[in-house]
């Protein structure tokens, strides 16, 4: 039988998946992002509803406990997302510079 917190968590993952689909429909998420986040939240729902499932996967990777496996995956995912975010920010910063530069030069040449 599921505990109260498990029910709440699983409901939350349903909410998260619906939010992902909504963002996809609004054009805010690409196909790759949509698939990634849906798989991610389904995995979270399975891990919460059947905690022993993580122990089984952990055993395959020869990691002692299921919770350790989840912890390692979470850390790796977070680092990857931060990395991706950083690259995105840098790319946007370069685009901003390009716009600022073009405008500044245009104004200078026009005022000559």
């Amino acid at each position, binding site marked *: 039988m599921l505990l109260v917190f498990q029910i709440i968590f699983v409901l939350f993952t349903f909410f998260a998946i619906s939010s992902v689909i909504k963002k996809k429909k609004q054009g805010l998420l690409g196909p790759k992002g949509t698939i990634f986040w849906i798989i991610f939240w389904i995995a979270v729902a399975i891990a919460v509803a059947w905690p022993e499932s993580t122990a089984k996967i952990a055993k395959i990777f020869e990691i002692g406990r299921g919770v350790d496996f989840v912890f390692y995956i979470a850390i790796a995912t977070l680092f990857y997302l931060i990395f991706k975010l950083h690259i995105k920010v840098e790319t946007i910063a370069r685009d901003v510079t390009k716009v*600022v530069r073009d405008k500044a030069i245009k104004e200078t*040449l026009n005022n000559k």
Partner: protein
Amino acid sequence: MFIAIVPAYNEEKHIGFVVRNLFCHVDNVVVVDDSSTDNTSKIAKEAGAVVIRHEINRGQGASLETGHQYARSVGATHVIHFDGDGQFDVMDIKPALEKMKNENIDVILGSRFLGKESNIPFFKKKILFPIGRIINKIFAKIKITDVHNGFRIINQNALNKIIITHDGMAHATEILAQIKHHNLKYIEYPVQVEYRKYGQGLGGGVKIVKDLFFSKFI
């Protein structure tokens, strides 16, 4: 046409003096005001410089590339990078340019470590610069004595090839990497540096390494 590119941010105290001195050695001076909050633009204009003003602060690398883009558009034959705080000596320009022309060199890189006396802070000289040289060897694959010297003279051939994409201070290493990549002929030339500000500290150095690392993935 020989153009001086002067990136400047809140340099109202020095910019007028720097621009006036530069006019004795170059055909035109372009001050790239990186969104200063003081009177840098006004004073530079009064001194006779062409002023290009960034609406938002984008960093020294971005300012230099803005100057490059302008120089390309007006057909400059040579450009010099010259700091706006007056730490360089304009008397180094003429002999460096002569050497460049005589020896058919694409890029002259100023160096504080080739004979001329400069009042370099101890921590920079003994700790930061040696680390900088190692970082530079890794990312730019060029071994030089003065990695982050802002004094550079670039000819038209190099100007058309060197495109600075780093907005911040990592541009110094990026320029060296592009010199290597495009197989441009370069030499280091002794210049004098009068320190008025401390400039890049340890935190700045860490940021440069971070920028260089992440740029590999952009």
